[in-house]
């Protein structure tokens, strides 16, 4: 059930950023919306739950994008590992910290992408628009990153509550039928 929710949420984000956002002015260069989701998994979910989704999302994005296979997988895995490591000594609770973490995630992904272009690619020249793209994406991340994190947490809590009610309802039903 929980994995269905995660996959559904990711699918919505992927569709949003491949079908709607590219056609909207100002939003055509927005950051990868799955980054806040990966950060959410890193901050609030277990490694077992998160790792499966990180690999799944990396695989999907690598196949949807024109990037070399493994680039999204790489960025998501290192982001997830980085967040898990960060939470061992920092509690990311405040909105400001969350903004910074999402911005750092966006920067890390861009760094990996640019590294793949320049070091591993056939054309070592850095794209002319690389700087502006990174700045725009980071600013978007600072502004909207925590909104996504709050939204994911809210949905998760509602879902947990709903699940608990369903389980409690079933338990009551089975107890009353036994009596």
């Amino acid at each position, binding site marked *: 059930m929980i994995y269905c929710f995660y996959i559904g949420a990711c*699918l919505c984000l*992927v*569709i949003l*950023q*491949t*079908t*709607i956002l*590219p*056609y909207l002015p100002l939003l*055509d*260069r*927005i950051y*990868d919306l799955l980054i806040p989701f990966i950060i959410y998994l890193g901050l609030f979910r277990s490694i077992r739950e998160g790792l499966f989704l990180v690999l799944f999302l990396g*695989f*999907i*994005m*690598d*196949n*949807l*994008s*024109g*990037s*070399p*296979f*493994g*680039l999204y997988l*790489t960025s998501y895995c290192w982001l997830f590992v980085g967040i898990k490591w960060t939470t061992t000594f920092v509690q990311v609770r405040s909105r400001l910290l969350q903004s910074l973490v999402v911005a750092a995630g966006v920067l890390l992904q*861009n760094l990996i*992408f640019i590294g*793949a*272009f320049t070091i*591993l*690619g*056939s*054309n070592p020249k850095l*794209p*002319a*628009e*690389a700087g502006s*793209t990174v700045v725009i*994406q980071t600013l978007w991340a600072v502004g909207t990153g925590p909104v996504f994190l709050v939204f994911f947490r809210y949905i998760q809590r509602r879902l947990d509550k709903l699940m608990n009610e369903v389980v409690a309802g079933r338990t009551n039903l089975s107890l009353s039928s036994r009596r």
Partner: protein
Amino acid sequence: MFSKKMVLIVGVIVLITVNIIVLSATTKSYPAFGLGHLALSFVAPFQEFVTRSIRFIRGIWENYFFLVSVSQENLHLKKSLNHAIQKNNQMQETELANIRLRSLLNFQKAITNRVIAAEVIGKDPSAWFKTIIIDKGKADGLKRWLPVVVAQGITGQVIEISNHYSKVILIIDRNSAVDALVQRSRARGIIKGTLADQCRFEFVLQKHDVRIGDIVVASGFDGVYPKGLRIGWVSDVIKRDAEIFQEITVTPYVDFEKLEEVLIVLNPQRHEFASQQ
């Protein structure tokens, strides 16, 4: 013998090294993993549904609520203009080809191509790559590396296919390359994508005459794009004394931001240069 911290550091270094090796292997070419088309088949139907819904709503708005007659007339005029541009280009190409054919009798001109129309249902999720997803696949006769065009010119080529959907790399992607010619002076080079909606025309020698405004067309030498199809116009030329090649910027005729429908050439004419020699 080794501390836990040391093992962790070595482990991370090993992981990074393995990661870089794997990435460098996949960066060289587009691997055709068997599972790749599964991801496309999984996400593309949802993209198709959302795109069609948006277009339907937009269509209602544009055609019924917002200047009905003007919109229709505009569409009609745009179609006519595209047709005229294409025809004009074909005539220019025919004229130049006729001149060359006087001396090269065994040269064959590109004839009609069989094409199939497809709708764009999704764009690349990353700002760093320029690909699109279209609603035609293996079941419609598509294969990898087929050229994708629109009336204004070359769009890209098919790089991955599933049964009903395909991924197309646009000519403005950094990994794309098209063998091209300047229509007027026949100067040859390679059109490479940049991150912006422009291309670089690389490997054009300093001695060749290239001017701003010149039309750049596909040469057909790459064995992918049919010869004579338009790519763009030269928007900037820089000649440096110390360099062998010119720095040329080409603005594509295709507006990639507004790309909604494309044509896939199913039987692109390949010039058999080897057999002619």
